[in-house]
C-alpha cells in the first residue's frame, strides 16, 4: 500500500466532556506519532499492536509538553482501515486537541475528508456496503442505545428480515412471471386473493421496519423536546438540574430574540434536545394568541413535551390554558416540580391528555425524581414510535428511502391487482419493490426470479 497518503482527523464529535480522539490511518501513522512521543519502553515503534498506553505528546519543534494522552496502536492489516491506525485520546479539551492535530499534520499527515476512514475500510474490503451504514452510525453514535442498535444491525438482523421479505416477493414475482411466460403450459393465473394477502403482509412488515428506522433516527439524532410551563414553576431550574446530572450540557445557546433556549442533555441513554420556552409569555404581551401560536409551532416540531407544573400550588387556570394548546397526539411528560415542598397539586385534577402520559413528581432543587424522569423519557421512545421488544434500526437516508419506495411499490401492486390489469402490471410493481429491498442490503434481481420459476414450477414441454 505504499504511496497511500496518511490521513488524520478528530474522530469523535467535539462536545460532551471535551474528550476527543485524533485518529491517524496510513503507512506513515507510526513514524508521525513516534516523532511526537518520547522514546522509552512505551515507544510506539516497538509496542505491539492493539495496546494502549499513557504517552506524553511533545511538540518536536519546541520540546514543550502538549498533553498526556492515551495512545492506541492498531497495526495493519488488523485495523478498521486495514492500514496502520493510531488513536490519540486527548482529554484536555478542544484547544489541546487542535494543537495535537496540528502537530500530526505538520508531521506529514493530510486532513481526512469526511467519511474517508470508512471509505478506506470499505475499499480495503474490511467492511461491506451493508455494514458501512451501520458502522458509520456506530462510530458517530452519540449514545449507548444508538451503539447497541448499530451493533445489532452490523450483525445482520435487519438484513435477514429484509431478505426474508425480498425472498417472499421473489417467489411472488416468479409466480407472476410463470403465469405470463408459461401460460401455455398448464400454469394457471395466480390466485388473486392470496396474491393480495401476501403483498399486504409484506407491506405491513415494511411499515413496521420503517417505524423502527424512525426510532433509530431518534436515537441517532436525539429527541427534540419542548419544555413548557407557566412562569416560575421551575423550568430553568429543571433544565439546569438535568444538565448537571449528566454533565452533558453543551453550552446553552441563547436564541436570537432570547425567547428560545436550546440545551442538549442526556436522559438515560438518549440525547435530548430541549427547547426552553422561558420568556415566551412576556408579561403584558397584549396579543395572547401570538404566544399560543408560537407554542403550537414548537409543539408540532417536537417529539415530546415536558410540561412543568408547580406541585406546591394547586392547578392554575394558566396551566390548563397551556394544556389546552396541546394536540391530541402530543406526547406529554408531566413533571410536577418542587416535590421538596408540601404538595398541593392533585394529579387527579389534570386533564385526560396529561393523565394518559407519564407523570413524575420531582424536585429540581434536591434532584429527587430526576432519574425517574430520565427513565421515563427513555421508555417513551418505545411508546412513541415502535412496538416493544424490537430494536431500532440505524438506516441512512438512502436506505430509509429504499424502504419507503418499496412500500409505495407494494401499494401500487395492490392497486393493480385490484384493477382489471394483467399480471404484467402487478409484476412491474413487485419487481420494483424487490429492487428497492435489494438495494437496502445489496442484491440483483433478474436471474433470481428465473431460477425461482424453474425450481418451483414444472415447466417445459
Amino acid at each position, binding site marked *: 500500500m505504499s504511496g497511500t*497518503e496518511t490521513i488524520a482527523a478528530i474522530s469523535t464529535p467535539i462536545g460532551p466532556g471535551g474528550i476527543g480522539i485524533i485518529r491517524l490511518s496510513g503507512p506513515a501513522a507510526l513514524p508521525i506519532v513516534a516523532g511526537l512521543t518520547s522514546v522509552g519502553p512505551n515507544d510506539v515503534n516497538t509496542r505491539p499492536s492493539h495496546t494502549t498506553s499513557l504517552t506524553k505528546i511533545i511538540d518536536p519543534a519546541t520540546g514543550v509538553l502538549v498533553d498526556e494522552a492515551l495512545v492506541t496502536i492498531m497495526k495493519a492489516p488488523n485495523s478498521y482501515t486495514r492500514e496502520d491506525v493510531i488513536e490519540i485520546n486527548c482529554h484536555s479539551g478542544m484547544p489541546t486537541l487542535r494543537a495535537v492535530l496540528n502537530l500530526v499534520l505538520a508531521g506529514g499527515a493530510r486532513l481526512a475528508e469526511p467519511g474517508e476512514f470508512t471509505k*478506506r475500510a470499505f475499499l480495503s474490503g474490511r467492511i461491506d456496503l451493508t455494514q458501512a451504514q451501520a458502522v458509520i452510525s456506530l462510530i458517530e453514535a452519540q449514545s449507548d442505545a444508538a451503539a447497541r442498535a448499530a451493533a445489532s444491525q452490523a450483525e445482520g438482523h435487519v438484513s435477514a428480515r429484509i431478505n426474508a421479505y425480498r425472498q417472499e416477493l421473489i417467489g411472488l414475482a416468479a409466480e407472476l412471471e410463470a403465469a*405470463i411466460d408459461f401460460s*401455455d*403450459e398448464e400454469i394457471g393465473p395466480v390466485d388473486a386473493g392470496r396474491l393480495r394477502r401476501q403483498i399486504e403482509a409484506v407491506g405491513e412488515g415494511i411499515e413496521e421496519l420503517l417505524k423502527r428506522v424512525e426510532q433509530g433516527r431518534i436515537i441517532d439524532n436525539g429527541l427534540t423536546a419542548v419544555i413548557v410551563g407557566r412562569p416560575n414553576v421551575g423550568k430553568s431550574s429543571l433544565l439546569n438540574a438535568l444538565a448537571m446530572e449528566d454533565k452533558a450540557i453543551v453550552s446553552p445557546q441563547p436564541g436570537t430574540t432570547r425567547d428560545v433556549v436550546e440545551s442538549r442533555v442526556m436522559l438515560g441513554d438518549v440525547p435530548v434536545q430541549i427547547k426552553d420556552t422561558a420568556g415566551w409569555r412576556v408579561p403584558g404581551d397584549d396579543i395572547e394568541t401570538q404566544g399560543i401560536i408560537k407554542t403550537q409551532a414548537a409543539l408540532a416540531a417536537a417529539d415530546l413535551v415536558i410540561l412543568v407544573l408547580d406541585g406546591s400550588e394547586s392547578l392554575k387556570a394558566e396551566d390548563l390554558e397551556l394544556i389546552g394548546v396541546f394536540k391530541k397526539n402530543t406526547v406529554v411528560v408531566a413533571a410536577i416540580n418542587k416535590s421538596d415542598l408540601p404538595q398541593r397539586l392533585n394529579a387527579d385534577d389534570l386533564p385526560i391528555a396529561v393523565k394518559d402520559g407519564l407523570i413524575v413528581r420531582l424536585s429540581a432543587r434536591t434532584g429527587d425524581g430526576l432519574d425517574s424522569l430520565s427513565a421515563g423519557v427513555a421508555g417513551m421512545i418505545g411508546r412513541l414510535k415502535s412496538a416493544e421488544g424490537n430494536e431500532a434500526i440505524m438506516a441512512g437516508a438512502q436506505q430509509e428511502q429504499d424502504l419507503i419506495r418499496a412500500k409505495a411499490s407494494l401499494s401500487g401492486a395492490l392497486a393493480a391487482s385490484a384493477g382489471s390489469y394483467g399480471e404484467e*402490471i402487478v409484476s*412491474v410493481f413487485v419487481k420494483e419493490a424487490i429492487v428497492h429491498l435489494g438495494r437496502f442490503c445489496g442484491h440483483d434481481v*433478474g436471474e433470481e*426470479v428465473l431460477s425461482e420459476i*424453474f425450481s418451483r414450477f414444472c415447466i417445459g414441454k
Partner: protein
Amino acid sequence: MNDNTRYDIITIGAGHAGCEAALAGARMGCKVMMTAINIDRIAHMPCNPSIGGIGKGQLVREVDALGGEMGRNIDATLVQIKTLNGSKGPAVQALRAQADKRQYSRLMKAKILAEPKIGLRQGEVVAIERAGEEELQVRTADGATFTAKCVIVATGTFLKGEMVIGEIKRPGGRAGESASSFVSGALQRLGLELGRFQSATPPRIWAGSIDATRMIAQPGDVGPLAFSFAGAGRRGRRQKDCYLTYTNKKTHKVIADNLHLSPIKSGSVSAKGPRYCPSIDRKVINFPDRDRHPVFVEPEGWENEELYLQGLTTSMPITVQEKIIRSVEGLEQARIMRPGYAVAYDFVLPHQLKNTLESNAVPGLFAAGQINGTSGYEEAAAQGLIAGINAALKCLGKEPLIVERSQAYIGVLIDDLVTKEIDEPYRMFTSRAEYRLVLRSDNADIRLTPIGHRLGLISDGQMEKTRKKRRGTDECLAKLKATSVRTLDLPGIAVVVAASPAVLKAIDLLRRPEVTIDTLAKIARLGKITKESRHQAEIETKYEGYIKRQLDQIAAQKRLEGVRLPSVDYARIEALSMEARQKLARIKPQSLGQAARIAGVTPADISILMVAIRSKTPAGGEN
C-alpha cells in the same frame, strides 16, 4: 468481377441464423456465399414444428419489422396460428404458429435462390483462417477455398455434435446429418473459447397411429392473424388442430423403473441442457407429486404423416421410449417413426463477442444462432439478422448497428449473451425484458421499421405504412385529448363512472379498465382512423402510467450506461467480491450499466466500483 472464390460475406450454415444473415447481407448489397452440410435442409426445424410463442413471438415480429424473412415465411407456410396470453395485457400477448416444416424450408430456399447476390454451395467447412489484414479464408472438406471480408459462423448444434439415445452415442449434427468436426478446432486456433451444451427432442410418431378422439382438440384462432407487418392474415383460413393429452401414473412408473437407463442418470450426457425444456425423465424426478404432465401432439405439416410429441422429450433407449408413449391416453397404438434423442455440441462462449456479434479477437469473424449458446429458431433468426446487417455495414464501411435493450427483445437477447454468464442454453422469455411494457408485438414496426428502412431492408411502401400507423395513432390520441364526454352520453358506462364528474376528457375515460376505444369511437369521431391506429392509441393510453414507470427505470439505467469504465485493474479493488473481480476482469464491461448486468456482480459491487473510479486514491493507491 466473376471471381467465385472472393466474397464480401460467407455464412457457414443455412439454419435460421444463416438464412437471415445471408439474406440481409445480400439485400444490403453485399456478395454473399452460403455453405451448408446439406442444402436440402435449409431453415430446417429439427425440434418443434412451430414458430413464435411467448417472448419468441415478439422476436419474430421484430425480425420482420427490421426486414428479416422469418415472419413472412411462416405466414405463408403455417398450418395453425393462435394468440397466446390473449386474456392478459397486450405487452405479453404473442403469436405462435404450427408450421408445415417442409414447406417452410422449401420456401426459404426459394427466397435464397431468388437473391442474385447469394451463392449457395453444399460443403462442410473444415478451416477458417486469417488471410491478410482484412480478409478471412474458409476451406471446405471437398477442397474449395473462399475468401471474404466477413465470415458469419452459424453452425447450430453441429460442432463436434454427438447424438445420444440411451447408451448409444455417435457423432452427428442432428438426426440424419453428420457432425462438423473441424470448425471447433479452427475457432480455438483463432483464439475463441468454447463451451459444451446439450439439447434433446421428443420422438415423432406416425399420424395414422393415434386415437384423436381420446384427446382434446386444440384448434387455432379464427381471427385474421399474421406475424408479418406486411401481411394482413386471413380470417377463417384453413387450419389444422393440435391435440392435448396427459401422462399418467403408468407413464411415471415406466420412467421410474427405467431411470437407470436415462442418459441424465447414466451420465452419458454431461453437458448442460436447458431448464425450460426438461425431458420427461427430469420432470418425473423433479416433481414426484405431480400425477400427470401435459403432452401436446402437433402436426409437422399439412400432410398427415408425422406428429411431434411436445412434452415427451426423452433420449431413453428406444424400447423404453415406446413404452412411455404407449402408456399415454390416445397413444396406446402409437408407432415411432423417429426416436427422440439428445445432442451435445460445442458453442462459442458469447461474452467474446461485441454487441454486433463480431468477435473481439478476430475482426470480421461473426457468430450467430445456436453456436452462441442459445436455443430456438427465433433466437437464431434474430442473431442471424443482426450479424448479417453488421457484416454488411462493415463491408460497406458504415457505422455498426447496435440494438439497445430498451429498443427491442433483440437488444435484450444480444446484450444478455455478451454480458451475462450463459450457463444453460439461452431462450427468450418476456421476463428477461425489463422494458416489457414498451417492447410489444403490436409496436415492433414503430420501434424498428425506420431502422430497417434506413438499412435498405424495408421497402418505401412498408415504411410509409408504418408512418401512417404512427400518424393515425397520434391523431387518435389528439382527438381523445380534445374531446370532452358527458358521461350521460355513454349509457353503458354512466353507471360505472357515476361517482366521477359529469364531463370528462375522452382520454381519461379510456384509462379506465372497463372503457374501450370502440365505446368512444363515435363521440371522439375516430371514424377515419384505422383500426390498427386506434388499437395502438388505446394500448398506449391504458399502459401510459406504467410505461412511464418503466421509462423512468430506463432513464435511471441510462445514467449507469453513461458511466464509462476506464481500464480498471479489478484485481486490486479488494472490496469487490472474488466472483465480481474475476467476472469483471474477464468480461471487461464498457460501462457501469453493463457491469451491473453481469451475473454475480451485485449492486454492492457497483457502488464499490463507483467509489473506486471516482476515488482519487483507490485502494492500492496509485495516485
